[in-house]
């Protein structure tokens, strides 16, 4: 049980309101943009700027407070729990898209092709369609495309991410053993591998769009492919940015073996992103 005698309770907070304002502005901007309104983009930019300032401000505040020893053990546990449950919510978010992939591959596409419980669907509506995977559906939505193979860039990306997981752990060991040098080298390696991954993925997308005819609009294959890999790629970017901040703070001499929640949270997040990729590699590319 925590000793909450001196549990740190902040008494006034302006960043959260600013975060809300930033998010709201961004989303209102985005919605307007989607509706074809010209105030969309500027609003979005404004909102995003507010958001960035907020993130910088809030994180600086947290790190100053942390470094000045305001957080005791109990506070640390609260933060860790917060992070854990946040990652759990992310797991559920990805589960939706994996579930979608499962459902379409195993149920809706076979049904459209006249298999299983809905044989009449093909007989009456889609007589010319044969269920295969990958597919862009009986309407041949988005036109001809080539599916993405597993053993090119995706395989390289798997290696990149896996090794970044190792370097991240190595950095953690450095932190625990008070080897700041190892900590910093490990973090540099992790962040670089992360950005390299994003770069490779950008190449992969470019190839898909320009040479393979594979787009977000390529029926259900394109939809699931880009949705899953896209959201994952976005998470890699966020993870890499967080790790960069951690790297920056390590360079400034922050973190002790006892008190390094920010590092830990970033590392957990990174490993989570790693695991999601393994799922992707197996279910999206290999199978």
């Amino acid at each position, binding site marked *: 049980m925590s000793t909450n005698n001196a549990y740190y309770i902040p008494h006034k907070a302006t960043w959260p309101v600013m975060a809300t304002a930033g998010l709201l502005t961004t989303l209102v901007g985005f919605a307007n943009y989607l509706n074809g309104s010209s105030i969309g983009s500027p609003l979005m930019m404004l909102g995003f700027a507010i958001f960035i300032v907020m993130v910088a401000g809030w994180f600086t505040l947290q790190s100053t407070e942390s470094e000045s020893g305001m957080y005791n053990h109990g506070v640390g546990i609260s933060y860790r729990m917060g992070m854990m449950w946040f990652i759990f919510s992310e797991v559920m978010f990805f589960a939706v898209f994996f579930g979608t992939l499962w459902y379409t591959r195993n149920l809706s596409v076979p*049904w*459209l092709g006249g298999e299983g419980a*809905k044989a*009449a*669907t093909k*007989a*009456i*509506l889609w007589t010319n369609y044969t269920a295969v995977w990958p597919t862009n559906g009986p309407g041949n939505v988005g036109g001809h495309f080539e599916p993405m193979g597993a053993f090119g860039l995706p395989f390289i990306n798997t290696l990149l991410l896996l090794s970044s997981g190792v370097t991240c752990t190595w950095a953690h060991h450095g932190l625990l053993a008070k080897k700041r040098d190892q900590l910093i080298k490990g973090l540099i390696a992790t962040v670089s591998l992360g950005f390299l991954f994003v770069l490779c993925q950008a190449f992969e997308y470019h190839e898909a769009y320009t040479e393979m005819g594979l787009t977000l609009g390529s029926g259900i294959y394109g939809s699931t492919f880009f949705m899953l890999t896209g959201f994952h790629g976005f998470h890699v970017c966020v993870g890499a940015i967080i790790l960069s901040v951690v790297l920056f703070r390590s360079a400034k001499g922050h973190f002790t073996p006892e008190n390094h929640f920010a590092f830990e949270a970033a590392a957990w997040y990174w490993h989570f992103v790693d695991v999601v990729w393994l799922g992707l590699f197996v279910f999206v590319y290999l199978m």
Partner: protein
Amino acid sequence: MKKIKQLFAGAMLTTFGLPIAQADYALNLMEGVTKVSNDIYDLHMLILWICVFIGIAVFGTIFYSIYHHRKSKGHEAAHFHEHTTVEIIWTIIPTIILVAMAIPATKTMLELDDVQESEMSIKVTGKQWYWDYQYLDSGVHFESHLDEISEKSHRGHTIDPHTVPNYLLSVDRPLVIPINKKIRFVFTSADVIHSWWVPDLGWKKDANPGFINEAWTSVPTPGVYRGQCTELCGRDHGFMPIVVIAMNQGDYDNWVKTTLEKQNAKPDLSDQSHEQLMANGSSVYLKNCVACHQIDGKGVVGNYPALRGSAKVTGGVDPLIGFLQAGTSKMPSFAKLKDNELAAVITYIRNSPDIGNKVGDEIQPKAITPVYDDDE
């Protein structure tokens, strides 16, 4: 006055919660006409009575304690706060009850699901906002819209719904089926999800775009059975009823024959009088256009443009014909209308005082030049 009386009677009934089955007040599920619907009714009654029984036991206990274990009566609180045996008993008994309920439920479910060995098939397509029926064996094919008088009543605010026979529950062309035949329905949709429900048949089934759902029925007694679309499908979801007429095989065969004859007959393209065109145009308009452009031709601001005073309507006839046959991304094509229907509706929207236009001409069927000759 009658209303107030009914209201009073109704209020009394609710207040006392008595399931007195008065003729005017349907309080319970209808039994329906098919065997399946009777089975479902029996299931319903079974669960209902189980619930009533458990309810009496639980609520009885609560009211007993409220009455006898009151502080104001000087009752002293006991101090027990658990009793393992009792807790186990009241976990196990409900479990047994549930198993007992699951058995007949499973049987009925399996029966409902079995579309094998059907003797004829009807394809039902839900569309915003009417049903399209296609008899896969005989080739009969027609649309079924809300009848004109209900349409006028709910849109026009001039006809009292109470005076409309089967208000909102009758259609211009009902679905006709023979009795005592196992009929398989295949459901799909052309736009959004609809759901086809005739309570007397005992079930409803969703019509999903791009997929086929199947269900079956076999009606033992001739009669008229009514139902409605039960999946929210947009602004006129409340106005796409279903009417099924079950008749003897002989009558049914006759119906198929005459229907097919009419269906295959060439439309009468001879010239018509202004009045004829306007009358026909009005019913074509009520079926096809009113949902969007409204009964007064004023449309819906922001969604559907007004025809009242529209230059496109009152301007050149040929562009208007072309427009209606081609449709746009927002308005469906009306190439499906026969030349005489198209001529009538155009005359109507150009000249009807209801729509608010007065060009003063009539468009004859012969004036329609086909852009598409596809009659589907």
